[in-house]
C-alpha cells in the first residue's frame, strides 16, 4: 500500500504519522482536520475476505472515502485507518467477528485526501456451512453525542 504524500491532500495543514498494522505493514499517513459529514440516509457497505482485503464496495463507500472503486478493491480495509483510532479498537473487532459474533463501534476513518469522517460501523462474519468465508461491514451516520464521547475516550486507549 502506498504512503500518502502532500500532493494527495486537500490542505497543506496536516499531521504525519507512521501506522503499523496487524500484519506488520507500515504506512505513512497524512491527516488533516477537514471533516466530511456522513450524508443523511446513506449506508456505506463493503465486503472483505478473511484477511480484511476489500472485495466489494458500494457507491457511498467510494464517495466518502475519496478513492475510486478500482483503488479500493484488493486493498486491505486498513487503507482507511486514521491515526487517531486506537489499535485496541480493531483488535476487539477481529476478536469479536472471529468468534462469529457481530461487532459495533464508532470509527474515525481516513479519507484519501487526508480528511476524516466518523461512522457507526457494524461488522458481521459471513458464515456459510459453519465456516466464516468473508466479512460484511455496514457504516451508518453516527450520533454526534457518541462521537464526542469517543473523541474523549480514544486518546486514552493508546
Amino acid at each position: 500500500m502506498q504512503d500518502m504524500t502532500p500532493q494527495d491532500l486537500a490542505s497543506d495543514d496536516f499531521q504525519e504519522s507512521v501506522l503499523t498494522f496487524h500484519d506488520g505493514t507500515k504506512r505513512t499517513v497524512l491527516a488533516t482536520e477537514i471533516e466530511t459529514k456522513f450524508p443523511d440516509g446513506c449506508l456505506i457497505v463493503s465486503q472483505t475476505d478473511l484477511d480484511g482485503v476489500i472485495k466489494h464496495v458500494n457507491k457511498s463507500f467510494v464517495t466518502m472515502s475519496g478513492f475510486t472503486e478500482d483503488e479500493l478493491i484488493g486493498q486491505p480495509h486498513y487503507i482507511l485507518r486514521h491515526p487517531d483510532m486506537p489499535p485496541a479498537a480493531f483488535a476487539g473487532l477481529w476478536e469479536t467477528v472471529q468468534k462469529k459474533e457481530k461487532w459495533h463501534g464508532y470509527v474515525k476513518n481516513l479519507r484519501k485526501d487526508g480528511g476524516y469522517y466518523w461512522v457507526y460501523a457494524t461488522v458481521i462474519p459471513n458464515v456459510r456451512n459453519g465456516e466464516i468465508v468473508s466479512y460484511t461491514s455496514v457504516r451508518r451516520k453516527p450520533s454526534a453525542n457518541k462521537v464526542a464521547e469517543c473523541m474523549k475516550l480514544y486518546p486514552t486507549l493508546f
Partner: protein
Amino acid sequence: MPYTMTISPDFKPDLISGWYIFNTWLQKKIDEKIHIEMVNDFKELASAIDKGSIDLIYANPCDIAKLVREKSFTPIAKPVGTHDEAVIIIKQDSTISEIESLPGNVKIAMTDVPNVNTIGLIMLEPADITPADVETITCSNYITVAKEVIRGKADIGFLLADAFDEFSSLVKKQVKPLITSKIHVLHHALLASPGFADKQKKLQDALITIQNDATGADILKNLEFQSWEAMDNDEAEFLIDLIDTLSTN
C-alpha cells in the same frame, strides 16, 4: 394440485392486477398451474410460511433470511430498477427540519412492513433515539400512517419512499419528508420452495427473458420493474447478512 404463489403484503395496492396478469403469463410460459394466494399482513404471511403452504413468493428482504436459511427456499430472481427505501415523514407545518431535533420520546406511526421499520429506526440513531425510547402506533397501511401524523397522533411516520411519492397532492400538502434513505442495496426477490425445485430453472429462464416479447414488456410495466435479473444463493446470503447488520440489537 396447483402451486401457490404469494406476494409480500407490502406490494402497492394498485399493482395487484399486475401480479394476477403476471401469474397468467407465467403459468402459460412454464406450463404449470399456479394459484395466487394474497395475504393481508406479515403475521398471516409468517403463518403461511410456517405451514409450508407457499411454493413461490415475492418476498420482502427481511423475510428472505427465514425463507432461505430455515425453509430452504431458493432465490430465483430480483427486480431491476427498484430498491426498497424508506422515508420518515413529519407534519408540513412542523418547525423540525432534521432528525437531531426530534424529541427523545418520539411517537411513531408505522405499518408492519419490516424493512421500512428497520430503515426508519436506523435513520433515528444519529438523534440517539433507540427502539426503547419510542412509542409506536401500528397502522394497516401507509395512508393511515400519514393520517396519524396529520392528526398529530404521531410525531413522525415511517413509509416506503415509493408510497410517499404516490400520495395525492392533498396529502403531500400536509406532510413532508424529514429524511429519506439512499441505501440502494435492499430489494425484494422471488424465491421458490424445495417443492418447486425441479422447475426452478425454467422459472428463472422465463423471468430473465420476460422483456423479450411485447406482452412481457407490458407485464413488467404493470409491476413497475425494468426487468428480472437472476439471483443466486450467494446474493441472497449477502442480502441476509446486510439485513443482519441493520438490525438495531
